[in-house]
């Protein structure tokens, strides 16, 4: 099962839960599952960046999530 980890600023949307494991095929499905579990979380997730297996995406959508994937949500990075 893919491991999904939330940073501090998202915990208010997950009722304090820091991580969970679930089966999905891609990021779009992951979002749908999380929204079903914690209605309203989609907005803040869409404003976050996400790292899937070490690769940072700003605005992921169809990126695959494998059974052994690690998914980390994190703050978006801008830059100068």
């Amino acid at each position, binding site marked *: 099962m893919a491991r999904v980890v939330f940073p501090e600023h998202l915990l208010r949307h997950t009722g304090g839960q820091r991580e969970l494991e679930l089966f999905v095929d891609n990021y779009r499905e992951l979002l749908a599952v999380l929204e079903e579990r914690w209605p309203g979380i989609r907005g803040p997730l869409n404003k976050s960046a996400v790292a899937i297996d070490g690769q940072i995406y700003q605005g992921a959508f169809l990126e695959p999530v494998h059974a052994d994937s690690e998914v980390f949500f994190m703050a978006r990075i*801008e830059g*100068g």
Partner: protein
Amino acid sequence: MAEAVDLRVVGTTPVRPDGVDKVTGRAQFGADLNMPNMLHGRILRSPHAHARIKRVDLSKALAMQGVYAAVSGADFPMLASGEVSGEAGGDLADIARNVMARDKALYHGHAVAAVAATSLEVAEQALDAIEVDYEVLPPVLDVLEAMAADATLLDEQCFTKGLSETPDKPSNIAAMVKLARGDLEAGFAAADVVVEGEYRIPMAHQGYIEPHACTATVNEEGKATVWCCTQGHFDFRTMTAHILGCKIADLKFIASEIGGGFGGKTVVYLEPVAVMLSKKAGRPVKLVMTREEVFRATGPTSGSVVRVKVGARKDGRITAAKAWLAYEAGGLAGAPVGPGVMSIFAPYDLDNFLVEGYEVLVNKPKVAAYRAPGAPQSMHAMEVALDDIARQLDMDPLDLRLRNAADEGTQAPYGPKFPPIGFKACIEAAKKHPNYLAQVPEGAGRGVAAGFWFNIGMQSSAEVRINEDGSVVVMEGNPDIGGSRASMCLMAAETLGVPYEQVKTYVGDTESTGYCMVTGGSRTTFATGMAVVRACEDIIAECKARAAATWGVDKDQVEWQDGTAVPAPGVNADVNPLSLADLAASASATGGPILGKASLNAQGAGASFSINFADLKVDKETGAVEVLSYTAIQDAGKAIHPAYVEGQMQGGAAQGIGWALNEEYIYDQDGVMENAGFLDYRMPVASDLPMIDTEIVEVPNPSHPYGVRGVGETPIVAPLGVAANAVRDAIGIRINDLPMSPPRILAALDAA
């Protein structure tokens, strides 16, 4: 990644395509456009750091001969908070209120009204005729005082974001960010040495030499054309449309050449005002800031207070690290405390850490991005703490960093595991560098520090067109701040297999090319470069198809070699190879002009790490610091145009040295910046610096066709720690606060 292929032009250092115009004075920068029938605008700025605006009366100004328009906050729509300005981030309501104050002036220099008149002189006189009633409020200037429970509030609607529960009372703390892992207590208990410190750094400015400038013209149909110096004209268009409540399609933005930005030109200041003035006046309006306005009302980066505690075992292994950050946002939210929190421990493999960051409103200019925004302030503290640990353990500072260095597979403090990174390679390169092996000169001190920046990808577009003679035009949408046109030409020439000179790159306006996010985040060579490479691959596919049609063979029987279509090995066709020029010449018969395009949201930007070290000498009579030598070593992934990569490293080092030694915003008790000019805001000049030696490390980024990581931001991070540690080495006294200006060094020497 096209690994280990022989590159023909990538990695060479040809002259940039826009070079001749820039050494002859032909290149047009932000202030260089004048239009027929043009008016000149000026902005009225708050004389108070904190005041309620009770009334703005423009009537006397408007009645003056030669004044064609005047605007104040009331002329701009009010935006709801929470609307984020596209990818460039930031709350649009805050940006809008920064562009023109509404109910409150939040810093000295905050725009309150603006006029357009037939000349600058008349515009200046009209500013004097504008009547503003202020209710002056006490300014909040110190970040720690601003955080106190009884502090004067800048914004009664500011409820700290990022807490697990929304607080019931407003405060000056706009946001809180936290990262944690492991068991801090156990970590510190396992430590043989523990160091601790508090480090303060005042606000500093990006210091680009070109002041903000723009010219806007709105016609009777409401269509606006805006010419301005910007790091991203597409994002400027989006922000302006939102702030004015108009349609994106009604705005055309043309990016002039840009005289430096370093992050400070990723956000609008003048453009919505110029458009509004032009609309009211029915004539073009030019707005150019003075240097004083640039200091008072644009940039800077956050002033900060950072507390760090680090524990390590005798062998140098860090057992626990804890940090607390408070970053000034200025009068409106938007401080880079998130990246400050995420970067402070990023170079190191840590089991136990906690870092908490606070973004705090104070009555100073709203901060803007500045090169690796947020990282220099926090990483300075960590790099100084590591230096103290190395001293206590009598360990070489490079060995200490190597002992703890993050590597491929290390879980970054901000979450994910690192893909291949070059931090260890940088440390190893430093250990072998002749400058490091050399003795520290008599009386001098040496300092070492690491740097890091995430880098970003995001959306870019590119189009490649083949002219009738086979010459190549690349169109993209990222303003060229430091030679990016040359890098695009190199990547296009490499991909297409043609000489560099055959390719020209142009930066299109918002209507002549597809969306490109700002030139920032060290993304241009990475993301837009990737789009250019893809567009060239599109061209190659098209050329192969046309060669196949010409020869009457299948598409997959054609190969592309050195800019020429040739039959694939084993294909038995008696044909002549077709060069790009041949294919272009026969284009009318094979399907018309040859065009390639690509658009993408580039993922997988690679983090870039660095090690810098320097030898400094302190004059104990004057407190002045002399930089004897400076060495910057950085992982570029792949240097497309190595001379411009070196230039980024050297320029970032110089900026960081200036920040460490001299640059700071100095305020009086009323919140008025006392040094708003280049004479007193002292940036490094040529005689302040030695040659800056560079070594480019190349650990390719697997996500880019040529391995590019992005290099523009990391260079400013390490110099702060380098200077602090070298001064410590030279005088035997640790100075925690920056800048280490002569008076501060003398005070430290006196106290010792």
